[in-house]
């Protein structure tokens, strides 16, 4: 009988330990990768659960009929067809949101830029006071609702009483519930609220520009501050301009709270109805989640496309 040869290990014991899964972990630990993974895991978990999952779920559920109780039922693009063909209120909301975004978006953006620039011209002490005054509306909680009393529809409202006393108005105007005025007032209030994070980013960007750039510019024949702003300041703020644009798109398309607080929900003739409010209507009141998801998906898509467009324009002007 032949003796069974003692099987020689193909791999050296020490090396085999290294290539086993546990060895991999150990190697990661020694290089700190395991700790790194543990440090990023909490953020990653919550980011996936509460940011990525909702967006992904909205896209998938937009193709279904889903009422939160029964299982979602696949219906293809029926929700989208319904949005554009049957839902007149949605089309009003789209129109309002676009009007709103096209006016407040660029206006707020330029307001942020121009006021950051002007504030930067001031002496440091006065600069901080002005920064606070301009930034305060966007941080002061829900204080915007005080505009309800300023534009109150009775003769006691600040605007009405002032205009009545000056003889400009004969009767009190229902600023917030009259569909002719409500969207304009909301735009005004949104402009008041608009100097937010993007504004701070611009101020910071302006302050970190090297002063020697301006000295060189003056030698090269920059004559006034507008020339200086266009030729020197803007090009060196490229990345900030993009950040400000992203923040502005986020605010302009997310508008909902201000509308419902000022003009009521639903507003008269849907004059202040926006896409987000329409989504909230179907989501939280009617529980038609598939339909609400379709609204969300279209909104995501619009915002992404707009960001791309703006990014292209900005990269051409400020590189």
């Amino acid at each position: 009988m032949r003796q069974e040869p003692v099987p020689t290990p193909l791999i050296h014991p020490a090396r085999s330990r290294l290539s086993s899964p546990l060895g991999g972990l150990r190697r990661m630990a020694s290089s700190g990768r395991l700790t790194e993974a543990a440090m990023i895991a909490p953020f990653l978990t919550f980011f996936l659960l509460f940011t990525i999952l909702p967006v992904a779920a909205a896209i998938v559920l937009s193709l279904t009929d889903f009422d939160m109780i029964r299982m979602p039922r696949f219906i293809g693009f029926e929700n989208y067809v319904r949005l554009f063909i049957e839902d007149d209120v949605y089309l009003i909301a789209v129109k309002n949101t676009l009007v709103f975004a096209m006016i407040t978006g660029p206006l707020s953006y330029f307001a942020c830029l121009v006021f950051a620039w002007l504030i930067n011209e001031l002496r440091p002490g006065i600069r901080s006071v002005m920064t606070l005054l301009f930034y305060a509306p966007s941080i002061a909680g829900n204080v915007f609702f005080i505009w309800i009393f300023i534009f109150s529809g009775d003769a006691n409202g600040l605007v009405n009483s002032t205009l009545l006393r000056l003889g400009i108005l004969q009767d009190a105007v229902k600023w917030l519930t009259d569909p002719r005025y409500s969207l304009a007032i909301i735009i005004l209030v949104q402009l008041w609220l608009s100097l937010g994070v993007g504004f701070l980013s611009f101020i910071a960007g302006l302050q970190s520009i090297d002063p020697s750039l301006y000295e060189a510019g003056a030698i090269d024949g920059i004559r006034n501050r507008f020339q200086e702003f266009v030729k020197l300041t803007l090009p060196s703020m490229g990345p900030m301009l993009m950040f400000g644009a992203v923040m502005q798109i986020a605010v302009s398309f997310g508008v909902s709270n201000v509308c419902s607080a000022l003009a009521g929900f639903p507003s008269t003739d849907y004059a202040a109805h926006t896409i987000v409010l329409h989504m909230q209507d179907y989501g939280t009141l009617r529980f038609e989640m598939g339909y609400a998801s379709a609204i969300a998906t279209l909104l995501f898509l619009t915002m992404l496309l707009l960001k791309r467009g703006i990014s292209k324009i900005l990269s051409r002007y400020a590189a």
Partner: protein
Amino acid sequence: MGILKQVFGARAGKRVSRSMGGDLGIFSLMIVVAAFMCLPFVYAIMQSLKPMEEIFIFPPRFFVRNPTFENFRMIGRFANSLWVPFSRYLSNSVVVTVTATLGQIVFCSMAAFVLSKGSLRGRKVLFSTIVAMLLFSYEVTAIPLYIVLSRMNLVDTHGALILPMFAAPLGLFLMKQYMETVPIAVIESARVDGAGPFLVYARIVMPTVKPAWLTLVILSFQAIWSREGLEFIYSEQLKVVPTLLRQISAGGIARVGIGAAAAVIMMIPPIVTFVVSQSRVIETMAHSGIK
């Protein structure tokens, strides 16, 4: 034109491209806009101090004549009519804001450290995903988020207001951008001394990026403090101050005084925190560019 010199400061002849007319124009414009920005605040303070008869006086006056704190006391009584004391709304707001802000600082700063100084694969992809998500504000994702939260049985708990804030894209973004400015040499030398990633993060990077996490504290505090969370909270005893404020202001002119008083209470914490930390916030925002 001494006042212009006071406002704009001496330029020591460096920036020649300035005209006095321009200075004057800028100054006047700033004053007008600043007045517009201030108006609602001053109006809120005035209304909050007016006794009932001054609020209903006709024609109405802008300024208060006999200031009283009656409206502030009335907030408590209004809240009692909803069977929940005002202190409960306030403590809910504090609990939600403090927990969410703390969680956000810890989660975002650790992840930002790994993304900016770590060696894990896929960091770039993850970061660009996060930057893309900056676009979707909380209003836009509220309904899809509601679906997720309700599957997790978190609707109508404070968890619905707190947990999604832990991984705020803006928080991570600002932290990571600021951490990029910490020189790699500092970190390498700590590694040579045998410090693991967590030690480097806690002992070296976090103290260096203090302006960044202070800014994050301010921004996150402001954002969460003013959030209503109407979609996520139904129970009156779990609601936060902004929700109460909306309920008060929905009552029309009869509640102008209380509404204004509640608004004044609401606006004090975020404004005070910003005043205290303004220079650090600006310092952090200097790194907020998206390339």
